[in-house]
């Protein structure tokens, strides 16, 4: 079984159907970029994978766990799946260290000293070791987002989900975050990224998905995807976006 | 002589509610008059006026209402003025209410952004006209929910007038409880009476607040 499997997933918000019969398989080690217009369902797709949104029908399987089942223990699963948000969502009342050690301490029961070591390690991976005792409002946007990534890495996840993580950043801060993502990709992390960074997707992703009106309209290996789009919708989207 | 609790008692309790209402209105009227002054002083350009307003609010809000009632109740005769108990209560309530209303209204005035004043001035309105046509209408809308909320407090506060012997709903309840030896039933009825007065106003205040939030 694949690491992530979506079968005929339908998601509605009130009268509005956001995901229409989506099927997707993600294997371990894949780097999948998801692109598309606003409202095409990209973020919702990601949020259905770790259960932040419940699907109306269909199945969502992550690492053998039936996420769509109301009785599922999402807690254990979410500890294995990292989710990085567009607006970072760091905890403002905690230091960087406490932000990162909260998960390991509370969810895994790891004690103080060991947790601190994990935090240092995670921060080193994102290049912010010296910010251990800072508060989030003392950091730039790019630094906050890297801390958010470190917070997920501290849980040693099997899968990382990124929901437009550079969209809220000033342009000059985007690079530092993308470099961290590239490093993670090289280390073999399975990643799904909803992104607008087309160059990054083309360079780093193994597969790219184009979402359009709630379905995966076209998908393919990165190079083919960008150089030879098969559908008119993807061609016009790429034309509008890559100028 | 002990009598049974009957509908006649419920009737007299209901009747006593009118004194609760009268006292509330008196306190509101007096409190508003003084409160307007406090709000005006509190937003003045002159520091002494602002300090006076701050001092008034600080002192009133730092002393229990019971103490204010007693001070006026016992104070008037000392200064050679004989007033009936209910007037002393009304004045005590007014002074107390002004300390809260004045602060609510001052807060509402102060919350109007400076840009509104500037916009009004730039279309040629004088200070008083700015106040009258642009600032005060907005301040009134902002101040109304907390003011209605405070009226609810005032209604409940009138219960303390019972302590200085004024026969409003609570005092009537005390007398009825003593006469019927049914304190639980009587005071529950009294509570119900206050609830009927307060709850609609509380809901109205919430409704106004929601409307205000939507409008912003």
């Amino acid at each position, binding site marked *: 079984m694949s690491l992530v499997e979506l079968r005929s997933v339908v998601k509605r918000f009130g009268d509005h159907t956001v995901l229409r019969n989506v099927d997707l398989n993600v294997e371990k080690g894949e780097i999948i970029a998801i692109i598309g217009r606003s409202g095409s369902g990209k973020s919702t797709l990601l949020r259905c994978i770790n259960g932040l949104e419940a699907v109306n029908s269909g199945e969502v399987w992550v690492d053998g766990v039936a996420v769509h089942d109301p009785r599922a223990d999402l807690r254990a699963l979410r500890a294995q799946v990292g989710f990085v948000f567009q607006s970072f969502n*760091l905890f403002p*009342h905690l230091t960087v260290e406490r932000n990162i050690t909260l998960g390991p301490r*509370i969810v895994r029961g790891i004690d103080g000293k060991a947790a601190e070591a994990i935090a240092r390690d995670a921060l080193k991976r994102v290049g912010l070791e010296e910010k251990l005792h800072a508060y989030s409002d003392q950091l730039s946007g790019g630094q906050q987002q890297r801390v958010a990534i470190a917070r997920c890495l501290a*849980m040693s996840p099997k899968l990382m989900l990124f929901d437009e993580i550079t969209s809220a950043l000033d342009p000059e801060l985007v690079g530092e975050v993308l470099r961290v993502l590239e490093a993670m990709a090289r280390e073999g992390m399975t990643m799904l990224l909803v992104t607008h960074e087309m160059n990054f997707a083309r360079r780093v992703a193994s597969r790219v998905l184009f979402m359009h009106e709630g379905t995966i309209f076209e998908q393919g290996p990165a190079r083919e995807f960008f150089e030879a789009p098969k559908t008119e919708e993807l061609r016009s989207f790429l034309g509008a976006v890559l100028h | 002589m002990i009598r049974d609790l009957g509908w006649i008692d419920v009737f007299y309790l209901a009747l006593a509610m009118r004194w609760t209402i009268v006292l509330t209105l008196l306190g509101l009227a007096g409190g508003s008059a003084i409160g307007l002054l406090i709000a005006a002083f509190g937003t003045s350009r002159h520091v002494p006026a602002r300090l006076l307003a701050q001092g008034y609010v600080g002192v009133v809000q730092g*002393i229990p209402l*019971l103490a204010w009632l007693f001070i006026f109740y016992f104070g008037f005769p000392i200064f050679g003025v004989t007033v009936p108990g209910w007037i002393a209560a009304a004045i005590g309530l007014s002074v107390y209410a002004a300390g809260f209303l004045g602060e609510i209204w001052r807060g509402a005035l102060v919350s109007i952004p400076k840009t509104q004043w500037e916009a009004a001035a730039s279309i040629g309105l004088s200070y008083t006209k700015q106040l009258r046509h642009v600032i005060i209408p907005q301040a009134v809308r902002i101040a109304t929910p907390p003011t209605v909320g405070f009226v*609810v407090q005032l209604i409940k506060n009138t219960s*303390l007038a019972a302590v200085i012997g004024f026969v409003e709903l609570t005092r009537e309840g005390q007398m009825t409880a003593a006469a019927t030896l049914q*304190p639980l039933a009587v005071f529950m009825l009294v509570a119900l009476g206050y609830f009927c007065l307060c709850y609609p106003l*509380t809901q109205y205040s919430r409704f106004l607040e929601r409307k205000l939030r939507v409008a912003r």
Partner: protein
Amino acid sequence: MAYSFQFRDVFAARDALQDGLVLTLQLTATTITFGFAIGLGAAAAYMYGGPLLRRAAQTYVEVIRNTPLLVQLFVMFFGLPSLGVKLDVIPVATTALAINLGAYAAEIIRAGLESVPKSQVEAGLSLGMTRGEVFRHIVLMPALRNVYPSLTSQFVLLMLATSVVSQIAAPELFYAGSIIQSRTYRDFEVYVVIAVMYLAVSLFLRAIFAICYHLLFRRP
């Protein structure tokens, strides 16, 4: 003015005033502790409980907030004995005050809980924390910090409201005043002194709360 103010008699009774003051402070401290706990429970019940719990919390808050403290006190003190419950003055006073404060605290704390963005909760859940853990570690302190001024103002109001329990002869500061009044006939002076004492205590309390803020929510 054919009256000379005689504050001397009042000052002569300062021991009685001191005893009353001590009880006022004790009542305040106990009530704040229990009232806060009740308020937190009611707010949590409203925010996270099922429809039944939510209704119960709502009813409790509405009934208490729309009836006077004095009447609540009378219901408990004079009403409960007829149900066979015999209680002393001070426990009744504390309970009535705590139940009263709890309703006001509940509204304030609820506003605080609602002020924490949903995205914070999502971030916590995404790390694998339970809703309870998210509440305790992520929501609670920021919520309380946001409503700290309203909450502590309510606590100061509560301290002033303890004067009402004088009406069931709880020997706190205000009651001490009425005893002195009946002994010395210095009605006016007594209550002026008492008023000043309450004012001093309220200023003292506000200072304590300001210090607590720095201790609880400080940022090095």
